[in-house]
């Protein structure tokens, strides 16, 4: 199971709001696909899927705030298709 964490999205940013999920639990994702959009007061960022597989669980609802490093979702990785991301 791969954990999708909030990456370090920008200098000085400690947290961001989950503004839009591009995927739902049970959806298949390709490595590098936009998974979730996060917003600060001044910008919006798309967090890519780190691997190809199926979204098992999402832990934040739209509108909730998450800190850098927190787990946003988990993906059951599809064997043999692991990307370098």
């Amino acid at each position, binding site marked *: 199971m791969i954990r999708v964490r909030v990456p*370090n*999205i*920008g*200098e000085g940013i400690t947290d961001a709001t989950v503004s839009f999920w591009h995927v739902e639990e049970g959806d298949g994702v390709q490595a590098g696909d936009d998974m979730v959009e996060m*917003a*600060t*007061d001044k910008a919006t960022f798309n967090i890519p899927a780190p691997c190809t597989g199926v979204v098992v669980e999402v832990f934040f609802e739209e*509108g909730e705030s998450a800190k850098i490093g927190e787990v946003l979702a988990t993906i059951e990785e599809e064997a043999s298709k692991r990307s370098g991301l």
Partner: protein
Amino acid sequence: MGGGPPTLRPIVVQLTTRGRLPEWLRRPIAGNGVTEQVRDLLTVESLHTVCQSARCPNVSECFGQGTATFMIAGDICTRSCSFCAVPHGAPLPLETDEGARIGAMAQALRLDYVVVTAVARDDLADGGASHFAGVICQIRAVVPHMKVEVLVPDFQGRLQDVETVLAAAPDVFNHNVETIARLQRRVRPAARYERSLHVLSWASERGCVTKSGIMVGLGEQEAEVEAVCKDLRRAGCDLLTIGQYLQPIVRRLPVAEFVTPEQFVRYREMALGLGFVHVAAGPYVRSSYRASEAWRAALAARALASAEGLS
């Protein structure tokens, strides 16, 4: 000068939440080693940047390219403008070696162009003008041919203070009018539109390359933006920046609208048509965003004008 009588529609403020921003406000995820180097040098030299204090959305991009806009005279401002995140309060004592430390950092980053701004220092008799001049000289004592752009407050309109700064020969004299004439009092209550134009006009008459900027998305209309541009051109302003206002913290003015990229293109074309040498207009354009490009354009225009004058 000014935007004429207030015959325009009242401002309709669309409430914006911390929900989805328009797609053109999407930024790439940051991250490279240079960003950390810049941050570490700022800590070592104990320097402030407006990039961090104003929570600039370009900070990762600019730090990643090894550039920053230095903010001198402390990180506490004597004014409390309704758009700005720099803390307001009792200001800090001036540091006499601040320019030398900026010079050292600029040298470490191999910069050839720096932008220096300051908090407003209405507590000082000269508004911090002599400190600005000292910082320019100290930077050039470390790196002799450093190009220095200053982004100055209005010095409450005191032209002798403007002169003090100009005597240190900045390469660009930047002072922002920030918004259209009608919204001045709401956006920057301690400043005056005419006073800012007068300061710019004085610097321009002294032969300095001058620059100004406005934020849009505060409820202004196209005709009002055009009026500011005309006023700035009458003041001799060479360079212009237009960017989207974004609320830095919740207790500041709300965003009235997100201006589309197409509208920024229209603003840029309109301003170029009025005779600005360089216009940077776009959602993420800020006052010192890619500042050296604008300066180079001004230099080229002056060289051309001089050549035409000789022929």
